């Protein structure tokens, strides 16, 4: 009997602890932010910037939620936010092809919705009250490849470390790499194109295998993000190869250090702060009755050793 009571008591404690954590609802605007995954380092920078934008603005609170890379959970979170009565939504899509239900839900609730970083609409125009803040992913890939083409002098072999295959960023960046090769550098061949799922260790594994398979034919590695690029750097270090250029995207702190010491040839700054704050800015304007552009593009910047100092 005592044990049963104890168990129930514990459950009660957990629940009340949970309530204690709940914040009292305040007057003013409440914005729901659904991140694709809190484990996605880049996205946490975007999220922090977005939250930070409202830090000095009275009457605005932002609630952060984690979709854990699960489309259904993302939908559930959006619906829960709406039930709770949020005034606006910011969403980083888990899967850009699966955003219709979320758009519909926001529309029914009559609240503005801003997508960040990943654009479900691609080239198409956005519906009313739906916004996008981000970068044109294809440009990152083009900037990477242009720089790589120069370094290699227009010839050689490269490998592409792709992010998750169902992700728009991964597909577009790779597309950017490929388009520059076919337009400008016909002398460069793509030796391999494999997915490292954005992960450092998988990027390393793939590179190790490429080194085995292609040896000195491999001259450059284009990674869809810095994590995988850094993995490639490790693999190259281990193999004692210093002649292979590696490039990433995102300009995370580790990557900037690597650019500084020359192990990474370049990274492309996807402006996390610009995107996060940009999204909040759009929502802020809309909530205040101002007009906002339906699409806001935040530019990419190529960071090399030369201009690194500007970004520290």
């Amino acid at each position: 009997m005592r044990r049963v009571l104890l168990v129930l008591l514990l459950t009660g404690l957990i629940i009340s602890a949970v309530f204690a954590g709940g914040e009292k609802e305040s007057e003013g605007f409440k914005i729901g932010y659904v991140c694709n995954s809190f484990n996605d380092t880049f996205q946490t920078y975007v999220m922090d910037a977005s939250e930070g934008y409202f830090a000095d603005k009275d009457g605005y609170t932002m609630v952060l939620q984690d979709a854990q890379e699960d489309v259904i959970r993302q939908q559930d979170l959006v619906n829960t936010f709406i039930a709770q009565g949020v005034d606006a939504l910011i969403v980083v899509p888990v899967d850009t092809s699966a955003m219709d239900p979320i758009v519909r839900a926001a529309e029914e609730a009559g609240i503005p919705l801003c997508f960040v970083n990943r654009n479900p609409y691609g080239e198409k125009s956005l519906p009313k009250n739906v916004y996008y803040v981000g970068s044109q992913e294809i440009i990152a890939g083009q900037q990477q490849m242009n720089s790589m083409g120069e370094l290699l002098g227009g010839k050689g072999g490269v490998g592409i470390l792709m992010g998750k295959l169902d992700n728009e960023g991964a597909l577009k960046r790779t597309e950017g790499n490929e388009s520059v090769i076919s337009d400008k550098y016909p002398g460069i061949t793509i030796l391999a194109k494999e997915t490292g799922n954005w992960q450092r260790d998988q990027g390393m594994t793939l590179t190790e295998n490429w080194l085995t398979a292609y040896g000195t034919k491999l001259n450059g590695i284009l990674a869809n993000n810095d994590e995988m690029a850094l993995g490639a750097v490790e693999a190259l270090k281990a193999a004692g190869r210093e002649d292979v250029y590696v490039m990433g995207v995102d300009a995370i702190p580790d990557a900037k250090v690597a650019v500084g010491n020359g192990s990474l040839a370049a990274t492309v700054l996807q402006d996390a702060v610009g995107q996060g704050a940009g999204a909040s800015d759009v929502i802020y304007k809309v909530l205040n009755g101002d007009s906002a552009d339906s699409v806001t593009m935040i530019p990419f910047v190529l960071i090399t050793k030369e201009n690194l100092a500007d970004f520290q």
Partner: protein
Amino acid sequence: MKQQLHKLIVKLLRISEIGSLSGLLIIVLVFSLLSEHFLTWTNFVGIFTMTAELGIIAIGVTFLMISGEFDLSVGSVFAVAPMTGAILMNSGISPFFSFLAGLFVAALIGGLNGFVLIKTKIPSFIVTLGSMMFFRGLLLAVSGGFQISYIGQNNSFLEVLGGKIFLGMRASGIWFIIGTIFFSYILNRTKYGNHVFAVGGNQEAAKAIGINVSKVKIINFVACSVMAGLAGFTMFGRFNSIDPTAGLQLELEAIAAAVIGGVLLTGGYGSIIGAFIGAFLIGILRSGLILAGAPSYWYKAFIGIVLVVSVILNTKIRKAATG
């Protein structure tokens, strides 16, 4: 003559690693036919390094499974231990003590799993499923989703854990070999090892002979967790940073490695060398498919088939060997 041959065959079949070993040979053969780069030293070293982390975990998991229990939380511990270490190192504590503290946390988690199991008699599958989710969540809460990089300059200790040593080998490979030898020794050479087999093979018999079954199980949970923590540290040593998502789903691969290596799910049978081979086989499959030019997701489908086939094969061999 014929009888001698028969005896030899039975003797061969009695080696508990025979199934995984022959599987390994077949796979090596297939891949060396498919890719000319497969049978090279660099490739071997590459595979070995990749396998090391999975392998170190698989050693612990096998050790625990022989005593008849499961651990699904190793993937989380794999990240928790080095994360603890990284936070302490960055706060200025010496890398060695941070390392010990990380392993201590891993040991605590293992002890907790074992303790809850003994006290509540809930199947270990559920207990460790709960602790897997709990600690993965805790990781996220503590790290905020960011990977933690070592900011200090004292890299020598990290080098020992996961740095490059010679001929392209990484220290993690050495740890893997040391772990294999150490646990093989414990299992086959010490009194405790016999007790582990006895507890997994026949709990009642073990009790009757005066073995403290609960103690053996808790110790094994701790050992399993510490190995997962050690594996996490070698990964940390390789990258100088640790990601909160590290080790996701690694628990299932580790169990797969153990099972391919011939361990019995019900306990009482299995070998560390088998786990070594099992992990190596998984590593080969992963890299061999890439070298052979297959899209990387073929790996998933293959690993499942290898798992099921190897278990069926191991069962059959065991039957043939024991009549």
